[in-house]
């Protein structure tokens, strides 16, 4: 890995993020005119939290994708395709429909999501991984099935929820960044930074696993431990962003893939690049989603879903040929 060149690219990526964030926050506002108090309020109370949420959710989903792809050694794996997002969503929806968040606050939503996500991953672990031998087709198929099941369960929850809670659930379920609030952002920010830090400390271990589990073990890596920590941490991060934004799919698939090509197949650089790339991608998607059918707004999950689904098919075809 060429460290200098990687650093330059990271700095460029960072500036792209700043520019897009600035454009996104100030779009259509007249900040420097005299009677712009309303615009300032919009900026501080609506646009800024929303941009911060895009950075945190996009970044954390993207590093989860990178880490999961690393331990499962397959580029089609990410929180969404594994059904982890779905599991988290069911957990959050159950909590919302029981109005538990009104009693226990937002952390309960995150915990409920985490519970759902970790249950899905445990299920995958039991079914698809035995003796370190991983059947990737089974893993992906079951992941997709779990996504289907969880979207049906979400419908079920909607159907049995009372009308008071219905609005909140639907609003959240569509996958949108309009739910941005400062206290949620702070919680999500702490979890994301914690996750990024831990993942980064495990970068070399993930690098070692790319040589195969057997070779990784003889390079001094406790394979089972790395898999477990990655799985638990990804569940936590996914749950945290899903509980705020709803299901936003495919970011964890697209971004690490592009970053591997743009940078290098080394997790020491991949985690940072994926975080920045995920933040940029979600912010751009949100901009498209909020402007394309103006004055109405499209859920951002729709945009990432369409772009990501096409990308999934593209990678799948390419890997099959290779």
């Amino acid at each position, binding site marked *: *890995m060429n*460290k200098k060149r990687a650093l330059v690219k990271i700095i460029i990526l960072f500036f792209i993020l700043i520019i897009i964030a600035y454009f996104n926050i100030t779009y259509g506002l007249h900040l420097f005119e005299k009677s712009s108090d309303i615009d300032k309020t919009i900026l501080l109370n609506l646009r800024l939290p929303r941009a911060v949420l895009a950075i945190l959710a996009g970044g954390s989903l993207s590093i989860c994708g990178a880490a999961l792809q690393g331990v499962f050694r397959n580029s089609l794996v990410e929180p969404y395709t594994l059904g982890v997002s779905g599991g988290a969503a069911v957990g959050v929806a159950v909590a919302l429909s029981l109005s538990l968040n009104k009693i226990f606050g937002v952390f309960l939503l995150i915990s409920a999501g985490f519970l759902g996500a970790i249950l899905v991953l445990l299920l995958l672990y039991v079914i698809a991984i*035995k*003796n370190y031998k991983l059947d990737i087709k089974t893993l992906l198929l079951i992941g997709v099935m779990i996504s289907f099941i969880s979207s049906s369960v979400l419908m079920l929850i909607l159907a049995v929820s009372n009308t008071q809670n219905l609005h909140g659930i639907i609003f959240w379920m569509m996958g949108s960044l309009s739910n941005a609030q400062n206290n949620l952002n702070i919680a999500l920010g702490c979890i994301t930074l914690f996750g990024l830090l831990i993942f*980064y*400390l495990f*970068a*070399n271990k993930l*690098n*070692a696993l*790319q*040589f*195969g589990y*057997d*070779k990784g*073990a*003889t*390079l*001094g*890596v*406790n394979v089972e431990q790395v898999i477990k920590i990655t799985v638990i941490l990804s569940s936590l991060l996914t749950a945290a962003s899903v509980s705020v934004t709803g299901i936003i799919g495919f970011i964890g698939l697209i971004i690490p893939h592009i970053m*591997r090509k743009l940078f*290098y*197949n*080394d997790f*020491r650089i991949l985690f940072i690049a994926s975080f920045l790339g995920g933040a940029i991608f979600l912010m751009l998607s949100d901009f498209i989603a909020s402007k394309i059918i103006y004055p109405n707004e499209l859920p951002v999950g729709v945009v990432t879903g369409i772009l990501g689904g096409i990308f999934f098919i593209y990678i799948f075809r390419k890997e099959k040929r290779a």
Partner: protein
Amino acid sequence: MTKILRLENIISGYEKGFSLKGINLTIYKSKFYGIIGPNGSGKSTLLKTMTGILKPFSGSIFLDEKDFYSYNQKQRSKKIAYVSQFVENKDIKVIDFILAGRLPHFKSFQLFETGKDREIAHKYMKIFDILHYENRYMYELSGGQQQVVAICSALAQEPEILFLDEPTAHLDLNYQIKILDLLQELNENMGLTIVCILHDLNLAAEYCSDLILLNDGAIFKSGKPEEIITYEILEEVYQTVIVTDINPVSKKPMVLPVSKNALKSSLGVKIDKK
């Protein structure tokens, strides 16, 4: 002779049935061992158990006369290096593949390699004559070249024992000889202990100082190639007609396969003469 690795009554394998049934084996320093045996005889299981990839169900292993599992994984990886049959992770540069061999020597949570790590990597690349590949990607190299890089990476680990799982299985004759010559050189010049699974009995007899013949999860016989590569022993283990001879150049034993047709006609000739 110093004992470096000792297995006592090892029962090991995967969940469905045990594939190793009570292995007793001592690996001595600076020897070149070949593990041979039919498919399913437990060669890979034995290698995986000796490298710590697979934990045995029962029995004990001693590494440098200390309990194998009293070392943690990282300590073991400073003494044991492993080269797998197929080279994975081809999407990186040769230098980074070799530097990965330095990972066991990193301090916990050390993120980047030091100048010393690069020095060691370069030292072995020079010995292996692959310095000019340094910045090539692995996928640009041929299968044989990739295997050379993989062995170089394992050497950069500076292990006491090098384990290899059929390093020549899918290579052409040129690279089979090249890689085994290389291993023999490392064994003789650096005193490196090598344990290697080999499918090809002739290559095993030609290169190894000691052979371990496995059959049905147990050691059928171990010893010098001359003691193992005899038609009586091999016919019993491989359940087929085998003719052995002596290699005219190296004076090592060799195996000649005989087809059913040739066998029939040679027997026929004998009967006719009677």
